[in-house]
C-alpha cells in the first residue's frame, strides 16, 4: 500500500520575535501552544497578544500532540502529492498542517492523529500529523 509521506522539500519557516519559542519547541520535538492567562483560552498560530480577549498575558504550554482530522485534501497533481489538512488539537485550536503516513483512501474527517516533526530546508522542523498509535 502506498502511504502518503513527506518527500517534497519543505520550505523553512522564519521564526519571528513572537513565534521563536514555537520553533525552538519544534526543534525539541514538542508542540508548543499559546494559552491566555486572562481568558483561559488556547490559540494558534501563536501571538504575543491573545486574539480572543487581546490580553498580553499569554504563555507557552506544551500541547499533547493529539487531535483529530477536521478537513483534508490531497494535492494530486503536485510533483510529489501531499495532504493538506486542518487538525483539531485536543486542546481546542484547529491548525493547518500536513498529514503523513496515511494510505490515501484511509484519510477521513474525525480520524485520530498524533504530531510528528518533519525537517525543513535549512530551518526548524515543522509539526505534521500521522495516524494515532503509529510506531
Amino acid at each position, binding site marked *: 500500500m502506498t502511504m502518503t509521506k513527506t518527500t517534497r522539500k*519543505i520550505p523553512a519557516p522564519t521564526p*519571528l520575535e513572537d513565534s521563536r519559542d514555537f520553533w525552538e519547541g519544534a526543534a525539541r520535538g514538542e508542540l508548543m501552544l499559546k494559552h491566555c492567562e486572562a481568558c483561559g483560552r488556547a490559540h494558534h498560530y501563536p501571538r504575543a497578544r491573545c486574539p480572543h480577549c487581546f490580553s498580553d498575558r499569554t504563555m507557552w504550554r506544551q500541547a499533547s500532540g493529539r487531535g483529530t482530522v477536521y*478537513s483534508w*485534501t490531497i494535492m494530486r*497533481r503536485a510533483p510529489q502529492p501531499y495532504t*493538506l489538512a*486542518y487538525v483539531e488539537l485536543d486542546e481546542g485550536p484547529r491548525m*493547518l498542517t500536513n498529514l503523513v503516513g496515511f494510505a490515501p483512501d484511509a484519510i477521513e*474527517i474525525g480520524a485520530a492523529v498524533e504530531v510528528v516533526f518533519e525537517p525543513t530546508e535549512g530551518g526548524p522542523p515543522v509539526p505534521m500529523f500521522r495516524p494515532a498509535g503509529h510506531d
Partner: protein
Amino acid sequence: MGAQAYISGVFEHPTRKAEGLSLAQLHADCAAGALADAGLKKGDVDGYFCASDAPGIGPLNMVDYLGLDVRHVDATEIGGASYLHHITQAQQAIADSKCNVALITGAGRPRAGAATYWLPQSPDVPDLGFEQPYGPATVALYALAAQRHMHEFGTTSEQLAWVKVAASHHAQHNPQAMLRDVVTVEDVLASPMIADPLHKLDCCVISDGGGAMIVTRPEIARSLGKPLVRVRGSGMAIKGQAGGDVDLTTTGAVKSGAAAFDEAGVRHADIKYASIYDSFTITVVMTLEDLGFCAKGKGGAFVMDGNLISGVGKLPFNTDGGGLCNNHPGGKGGMPKTIEAVRQLRGEAHPAVQVPGCDLALVHGTGGFLGSRHSSATLILERE
C-alpha cells in the same frame, strides 16, 4: 438611505493572454475604455481607486502613468473582491465631496508573464511560517472548505458540478470567453482530480486581462445619457482562522450580504440576476447559502438542475461565463463580476443570456482563501 452614486462606465479588456501589453498599459486601456463608455474624458477624473495589481506604490505610479490629476485616491487591497469594495469607497468619497468622477482599474497578466505579486511574501506576515511549509495552494485551501462542507451537509460532487455546467451554458455565447464548450455534470466528474474533492473543471481559468469602472455623483450620471445603475446597498467582511476557531463552511458573505440587503431594503426574491465570485464551484455554493438565497447546507441542492442558468433557473448567475469559463484577470475576478451585473442592468448582456426586465442585481466578491482567510464584499445594484 446612504450616499448616492452611480456606475456610469464599464470596460472589460478583451484579451485573455496579454502578449505585447504591459501591465500598466492594460490598466490604461481599461481606463480609456470605461471613460469612453461613460462619455467622459480623462480630465474629468478626480478620484482614482486601485488594488495592488496596479504596479507601484499604491496608486502613485499609476496616477503618474495615466497622467491623472486627482484629489482623492484609495488603494485598498482585499484580494479579488477589492473592486467591489472600491465601488463603496468611491460612493463614500463622492458623498463626502472628495471627488465627483471615480476611476477604478484592475488588471493582471499571469499567462503572459508577470507573477501574482499581490500575494503576501514578507516573512513579517505573521501566519506565513505556519502555512507556507505545508503547501497551501489556492485550490487546496478551497478544497478543504469543500471537503468539510460535504462532511457536514452531504453536498456532492455532482451538485458542485452544476455550477460549472451553468457557467458553461452562458460562456458559449461569449466570444471572448476562454472556455466556450458546454459541459455536463459527467464531464466535470470525469476531469482530473486536482485536490480532493475538487476536479479540474471545478476550478476557474487563469487568465490575463482586466477592466475598469467609472463611478459618478448623481448630477453627472444623469447628464451622461447612459442607463442609470445606482449602488443601492453594500457590505464587506473579513473572515479568518479566528485564533484557531477555524470554521470552513461559512464565509464572510453572512455579514457582507446582510449589510447589503439591509442598506438596500430589498428582499432576495427581488434580485433578478447575481454575479457570484466563482474561483471554484464550492465558492458559489457556500456564498449563495451565506447570502441567504437558500438555507445553510442547501446550496448544493439549490444549484442543481440548471437553477443558475439564465432562462432556465430561478437565479441566473455569471452570464458572461464567470471565472469558471470567461476570465479571471490576474487571479482577481471582482471586476468582471461587477461589469457583467452592469451589463445585465443596462440590458446590454448577450441576448441569449439577458435577463428580461433586470432591474435589481447582486454582485458578490470573495478575496483570498476560504480555507484560511478571505474578504467578502457584496453590492446590490439597481437600474433606475
